């Protein structure tokens, strides 16, 4: 069909345009990292005059980049793992078992989304201090888990609700335990939602510098955005260094995302009914 062909062509063209709009700013971010301050301001969108690595070298040499990176990896991984485990368990209970307080429990989780946790920074500090968790990675992870649970429970409950009940019933009749039904029948079907919840939480945790700034003081425990924020403060008007720092901070998570994108997309489409 010619009409169909033409339409698909138009859709393809629009997708290409969209792809360009999505990618071009990222390209600018990367080339800016190689530019001097004056160059960024006079010709921000031109290619850099040379492949100048001074900005990146400065970030690398003047901060404990690898150390901060390691801390960020540990904190983000631990937080996301804990969020997924706790949120999946809770969402499963809310979505698959009708019980008296399920609505109230769901709203309790949802209420955590309604107000910025920053508001509670002083009580949180005192709470963590009482538990001896100030200036520890564990303290930071707990705060992130608390921050991420509401949206993760919300997304997972929404998806788990839509799973057909027949499979569950069939397994139950066969005498499978509830744990077994959850782990080997239902959760594999919820993979797309778990992937979405994981990414949706990993990004803000990876990028956050507010809570580490308040809760972490030892240099050896600092996360990447926090460590770089101090460094960027020293160069607060050197945009080339700033872009180099931002690019270096964004690069690990972008690379991880691109490397895992196949699994990510596969996870998303696994729920597809062929």
């Amino acid at each position: 069909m010619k009409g169909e062909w033409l339409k698909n062509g138009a859709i393809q063209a629009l997708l290409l345009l969209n792809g360009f709009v999505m990618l071009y700013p990222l390209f600018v971010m990367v080339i800016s990292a190689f530019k001097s301050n004056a160059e960024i301001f006079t010709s921000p969108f031109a290619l850099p005059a040379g492949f100048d690595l001074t900005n990146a070298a400065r970030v690398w040499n003047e901060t404990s980049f690898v150390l901060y990176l390691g801390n960020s990896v540990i904190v983000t991984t631990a937080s996301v793992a804990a969020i997924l485990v706790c949120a999946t368990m809770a969402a499963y209970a809310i979505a698959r078992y009708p019980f008296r307080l399920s609505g109230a429990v769901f709203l309790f989780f949802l209420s955590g989304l309604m107000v910025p946790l920053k508001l509670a920074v002083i009580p949180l500090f005192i709470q963590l201090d009482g538990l001896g968790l100030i200036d520890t990675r564990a303290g930071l992870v707990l705060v992130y888990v608390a921050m991420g649970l509401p949206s993760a429970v919300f997304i997972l409950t929404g998806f788990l609700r839509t799973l057909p009940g027949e499979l569950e019933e069939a397994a139950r009749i066969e005498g499978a335990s509830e744990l077994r039904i959850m782990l080997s029948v239902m959760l594999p079907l919820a993979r797309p939602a778990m992937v979405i919840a994981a990414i949706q939480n990993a990004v803000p945790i990876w990028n956050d510098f507010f809570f580490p700034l308040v809760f972490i003081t030892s240099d050896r425990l600092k996360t990447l955005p926090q460590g770089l924020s101090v460094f960027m403060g020293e160069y607060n008007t050197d945009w080339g260094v700033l872009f180099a720092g931002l690019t270096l901070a964004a690069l690990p998570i972008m690379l991880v995302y691109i490397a895992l994108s196949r699994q990510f997309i596969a996870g998303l489409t696994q729920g597809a009914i062929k």
Partner: protein
Amino acid sequence: MISARIGKLALAATAAWGMAFSAAHAADITFWTWRQEDKAAYTELFGDFTKANPDIHVKIEAFDPANYATILSTALAAGHGGDVLHTRAYGALETFAKAGYLLALDPKAVPELANLPADALASETLRADGKVYSLSFASQTLGVFINKDVFAKAGVQPPATWDAFLAACKALKAKGVIPLANGTATAWMDEVMASVFINPFLGPQFVADIQSGKASFEDKRYTAALGRLLELRDYMPPGFTGVDYATSQQLFLTGRAAMFAGGSFEIANFRKQNPKLNMDFIAPPAPSAGAPRYVSKFYDGGYAVNAKSAHQADALKLVRYMGTPAYGTKFAALLGNISPIKGVVINDPLLAEVAKLNETSMPYIMAVYFRFDSPTGSELLQSGLQKMMGGSATPEQVGADITKGVSRYYKPFQK
């Protein structure tokens, strides 16, 4: 005797507090600051201190400036925080002092307070109890930076009166130079620029009238002075409402703009970014030939002692050291800022000029008098200026909004 008393105090504080926050050894004290870019200079300054006091080492913790107040207030609320703290001045200092987080500096315990001028002490005093809580570290002067090379190339003389200023702007613009680098996108810079140009029109009498309640910000003098700013719009960068602070700095540093209305706190930064820049810092234009060209002056902040510090005696020693002329002289030389301490020698020629300009100065009105209660004069003025320069408010509306806002707490306006 004094030190014995302080020692006892410190002991009591330690006992009350239980355990020191950071597991530092006994003679380590920490200094908390938002001046990340000054870390190297402070390391050197504190090195001198440790040479004189070999048993006290100072550890510097520098924080993100945008979040410094939050980080500091959170730590202090939980009974932690550095031993010596960099604090802001005026209303921002009061919020900390009122809460009991800072140690009042007794002139007997810190005799160096006598080295400071009265307005510097006032900037670090809690008005309610009249006690000083922080030792001022720098005064800042607001005026006009000029690029001498750009002026020379355009054949224009630095202007001394408002009319000459506008004429110079016109001549510079004709040569393809942006006369004034300032934009209005960064709110606090609007207040800086406004203060630079309107203070000579207002004069010290206006400040006195505001304090006595004889005049408000609806006064003709104030609104007329604000109106002058509108004449500058033709000489600011194209699209100046979207030009932020960082861009303004770059326009001036790269020579694309000839002037920059700003504060003496830029000097060190400008030099670092463009060491070849041939700049001068001059007083703003006078309303008429021969009239005084008032610069605006205020104090940045000071050094305070954490009321719950476990090392108060050592912390006080450090603060006393930071109140000496020797410290002030080295501070000025290393950081390119004017130390308010009497007897400080300023060798840098440009800084010496700024110090000279300070002899004809007026207070930076909103920061010095109207940042103690909410809504602050600064918030109202900054937002009003952005609207006025963008064309959506008149000077009269801005003046009326400020007067109405501050009347909520400012007694002289409540009559």
